[in-house]
């Protein structure tokens, strides 16, 4: 499965959660598949989805699901020790690990070679780290939500992108409608 197929499958689960979605094609795909005011789309700033989601989870009680990528986590590896040492049980970091920089032309990342993000997360001190194959994403995400425990979920899948339109919504609109959902 590629990322867009996974997102389409888990959209019914994501719909009821606060979602912080990674820059580029992941946000475009989620926006096209199931736009919700409870989705915060990153339009820039590669690497910070996990940090934004952690700040959000620590600040309020609703569950937060971060949809991140292997390339973006690699660019902000310091996020994993911060996550591990600031436990928020309403926080799920879901890393769609397709071993490539999808938004820039599918150049390979090191997670498709020797590097294991699940291993790095465990070494950083994260207590609930789950690695699954693409077909098991929905069950693993629901299990993580039901557990009420902070979870890092690494989803191994194929490289590839769906052709989706750019997000043209104003960033302040994205942010404002998201904050309205947070406060609801």
């Amino acid at each position: 499965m590629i990322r867009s197929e996974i997102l389409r499958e888990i959209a019914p689960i994501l719909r009821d959660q606060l979602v912080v979605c990674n820059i580029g094609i992941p946000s475009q795909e989620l926006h096209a598949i199931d736009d919700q005011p409870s989705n915060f789309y990153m339009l820039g700033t590669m690497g910070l989805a996990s940090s934004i989601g952690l700040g959000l989870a620590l600040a309020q009680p609703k569950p937060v699901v971060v949809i991140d990528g292997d390339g973006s986590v690699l660019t902000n590896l310091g996020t994993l020790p911060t996550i591990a040492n600031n436990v928020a049980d309403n926080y799920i970091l879901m890393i769609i690990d397709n071993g490539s920089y999808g938004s820039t032309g599918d150049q390979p990342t090191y997670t498709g070679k020797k590097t294991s993000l699940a291993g790095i997360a465990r070494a950083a001190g994260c207590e609930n780290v789950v690695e699954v194959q693409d077909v098991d994403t929905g069950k693993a995400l629901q299990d993580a939500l039901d557990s009420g425990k902070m979870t890092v979920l690494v989803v191994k899948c194929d490289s590839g992108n769906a052709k989706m339109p750019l997000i043209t919504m104003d960033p302040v609109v994205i942010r404002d409608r998201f904050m309205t959902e947070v406060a609801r």
Partner: protein
Amino acid sequence: MNIDKKITDDLVANGISFVTTVPCKQLAGVIEEIDNRDEIYHIPSNKEDEGMGLCAGAWMGGKRPAIIMQNTAIGVTINTLATLIQFYRMPLPMLISYRGELREPVACQVEMAVHTKALLTQLNIPTYHFHHQQDVEELDNILKYTFMSNKPVAILTDANFWGGYGDQ
């Protein structure tokens, strides 16, 4: 006047309850004071752009954030300031130790000091420079201004403000 306590009191009085820090020797006292306050959740970050992401999330979650960092971090965070904090119109007070100014003992620090104000000006970030200890009296108004305007605001605090760099 205990400057560390005064700064922390102003943060708390302005409802700031989520503070991320990357340390600097000049900031050690205020970081310790923040760490000791029940009103503030202190979350050290490993890099300043990561810290700004944490602050952005906390603000959307209903908390008032602040970041405490060194001026060298301006070099690290320009993209984050432009494409996250400014693009989405978020408030962010940045208490910054202004290394490389008068009474600085480490020559390399001057290399970023000479770019600091120019970079902040280029980014249209409101910038205040605390040089004398009494300049801290403006902090309360600067914090109110930050959350009124929904912008990142820089407060540069140099070695003279902190009473010299210390024994080094």
